[in-house]
């Protein structure tokens, strides 16, 4: 563009420069756990199709300590994913109005988290019933 001797700083290690970026990368990394958990569920569906013996084997596999620790780790990771997702949500949607006033970002995040908590609670109650 010009003959000026400008200096371009390298981007290497950019995400470690700011705690905000570290949290962003952590949010993105939760996708790996979502992916692995989805594979586990698909394996369960395939086992279900293959009959009761295959499904029981899949259930037994879930009780393996290694798989159990993955599941508990995933629970924590999913909770963080949910939190980060609803935090960014107000920035991703058109302005929401209620009774003629714009709904505050914090209210949208809180409503999303509440909905996620209620849905998760209902699912757990259903599974234990």
């Amino acid at each position, binding site marked *: 563009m010009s003959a000026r001797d400008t*200096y371009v700083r390298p981007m290497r290690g950019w995400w470690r420069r700011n705690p905000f970026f570290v949290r962003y990368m952590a949010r*993105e990394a939760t996708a790996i756990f979502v992916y692995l958990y989805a594979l586990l569920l698909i394996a369960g569906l395939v086992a279900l199709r293959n009959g009761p013996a295959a499904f029981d084997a899949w259930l037994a596999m879930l009780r393996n300590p290694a798989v159990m620790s993955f599941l508990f780790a995933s629970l924590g990771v999913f909770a963080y994913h949910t939190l980060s997702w609803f935090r960014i949500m107000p920035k991703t949607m058109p302005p929401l109005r209620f009774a003629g006033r714009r709904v505050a970002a914090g209210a949208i995040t809180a409503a999303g988290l509440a909905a996620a908590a209620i849905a998760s609670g209902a699912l757990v109650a259903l599974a234990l019933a």
Partner: protein
Amino acid sequence: MPDGAVMSKTIEIEVLRYEPAEGSAPYTQSWTIPYTDDMSVLQALQHIKDHVDGSLTYRWSCRMAICGSCGMMIDGVPRLACSTFLRDFPAGKIRVEALAHFPIERDLVVDAGDFIGKLASIRPWITPKVEKDLAAGEFLQTPAQLERYEQFSHCINCMLCYAACPQYGLDNRFLGPGLTALLHRYNVDSRDAGQEERMQLAHSEEGVWGCTAVGYCSEVCPKQVDPANAVNQNKTLSAVDWFARFLPGSRAA
């Protein structure tokens, strides 16, 4: 700094300096200066330039957070030097660097050529729906119509959001947060008819899809423009536009 003020406190100002010359590299230089609680980072730089080292180079103009000239990295955060106060750094030291993700021209001055070039490409003006004679009066808007774009019209082109956007830093073909907010400001203005041309840019490879919703742009914006919201609203519009081609009677069908 006010004459005669008691200045018993000192602060160390560390600056990433760069003098343009082929093969030259940036280096760090520090000055310890006296300060009062009402002094901004900009005033600290002015003190250094006036009293210690006249070669220190930075941009500034209004010194009241409206011109958008004095954006720089202060302790790694994109901020306006004029509205960042020394009293908020009790550790007694700050590091100042040119705005991230832009080439350094000299010391704290960046080459904003890329931003300025893109600014024209979003057509930042109102394209009237109907030509109206001046004598016919102004185009009227309701408060609700004003509210749709007002927040996005507060942008002062300070480029802090670009320094906050790693995607722009990694690939500066991306149109970026601030200019997408400005694009959106004109697109949702009830008086404007230029949406179609602007949306071609928003839908393109360089447009909104370069954003991965980091969201830091909106955090650092000194005018609460929320550029991340403008970018992500246009992702929705872009997706709707793409799927609309499959509807009978659409332009592409």
